[in-house]
């Protein structure tokens, strides 16, 4: 069966070809895509979601809800296209939806596949293919080039990262970025979430929560590293034993450590980080899970 990400990319390209899209993804959504899909019942609202979610999609109502409390445009754009992708996969992208049903998975796994696909779909809408070849060399990421793109105003860092994930070589098992950051509560081992979307130019370092994704991984795993602005830490990423056990859902038969590099930097007074992990030498090609 054809790779589901390839099928999704084809569905997206066919869809984009139906519109005269501009370089502005917000204009594309507001003026082109949403009016067209509204004819098919799609609805869009922005409200303050006190739950803290960036966005919601109600499939039975064909309703996209975006959290009005998120003001940072790149983050909002990624969420808009992520939620739009939920609608498109279930209502427009027949080939992708049909392909998803070729996997014998339970309801929870189905949800995780959909979430992963919606992230990749958002990236396909937001990032042009030409950028990929600039950011990668022989399938490996060029860190300085990636950082320079991410530092562009209104440029979506997660979109770039997810786009690159789909094109990296198997020598580099994951690139992730997430910008929730934390400080330790004094005298306690827990970490307190300090902000999600607020500029803070005085923040010099942060514990960063991140998800570890590559096209061969079905599940995100979160870990915390203390990362400094304009710093790079050389760390080890250790898979959790309880998710790395045995079966065909995970790439490792038991807990493994992999060397990784976590980069921190400022953009518009906001702290960003991303991680690059290189596959450890003892993990062979055939041990990597193929979705």
């Amino acid at each position, binding site marked *: 069966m054809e790779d589901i990400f390839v099928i999704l990319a084809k569905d997206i390209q066919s869809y984009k070809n139906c519109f005269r899209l501009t370089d502005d993804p917000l204009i594309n959504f507001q003026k082109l895509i949403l009016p067209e899909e509204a004819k098919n019942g799609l609805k869009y609202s922005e*409200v303050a979601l*006190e739950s803290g979610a960036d966005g919601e999609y109600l*499939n039975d*109502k064909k309703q996209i809800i975006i959290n009005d409390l998120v003001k940072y445009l790149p983050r909002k754009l990624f969420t808009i296209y992520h939620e739009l992708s*939920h609608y498109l996969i*279930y209502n427009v992208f027949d080939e992708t*939806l*049909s392909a998803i049903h070729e996997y014998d998975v339970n309801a929870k796994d189905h949800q995780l596949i959909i979430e992963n696909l919606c992230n990749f779909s958002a990236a396909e809408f937001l990032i042009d293919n030409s950028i990929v070849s600039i950011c990668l060399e022989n399938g490996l990421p060029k860190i300085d080039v990636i950082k320079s793109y991410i530092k562009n105003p209104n440029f979506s860092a997660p979109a770039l990262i997810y786009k690159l994930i789909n094109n990296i070589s198997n020598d580099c098992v994951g690139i992730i970025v997430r910008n929730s950051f934390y400080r330790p509560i004094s005298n306690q081992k827990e970490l307190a979430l300090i902000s999600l979307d607020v500029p803070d130019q005085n923040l010099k370092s942060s514990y960063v929560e991140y998800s570890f994704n590559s096209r061969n991984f079905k599940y995100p795993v979160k870990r915390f590293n203390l990362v400094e602005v304009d710093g790079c830490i050389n760390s080890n990423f250790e898979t959790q034993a309880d998710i790395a056990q045995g079966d065909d859902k995970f790439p490792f038969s038991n807990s493994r450590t992999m060397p990784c590099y976590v980069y921190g930097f400022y953009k518009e007074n906001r702290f960003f980080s991303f991680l690059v992990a290189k596959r450890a030498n003892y993990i062979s090609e055939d041990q990597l899970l193929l979705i």
Partner: protein
Amino acid sequence: MMQINDRIRVLRKEKGLTLKQLASASGLSLPFLSEVERGESNPSLESLESIARGLSINIEELLIDTEIKTSGTIPPTLESAISSGKIPPDWAQTLKNIQHRGHQPQTEDDWITLYYSVRKVLE
């Protein structure tokens, strides 16, 4: 006894059909069949007859040793919020099927907060 959605998926795969092919053969929409196979929607008798036709079997063969029950599992914390009267029962499916980006509802209070947020939009 097998659930009807699992039975449909098993039979479809035995016949070597993709979901898109079954949609075409049965005359039902792909999104609807996706919901049926995921257990998110209970097919009517008419839909079951269409599915059987698409699979080139009779409906008795489709229904043998299967059961049809309320679709999907409601998370316990959502169920608790409903049974305590804080969320109307008819909101259960809508809230359960919401695709979240970011924070996922964990507690009863999370579901109640989500209910009020979504209700503002839909009403």
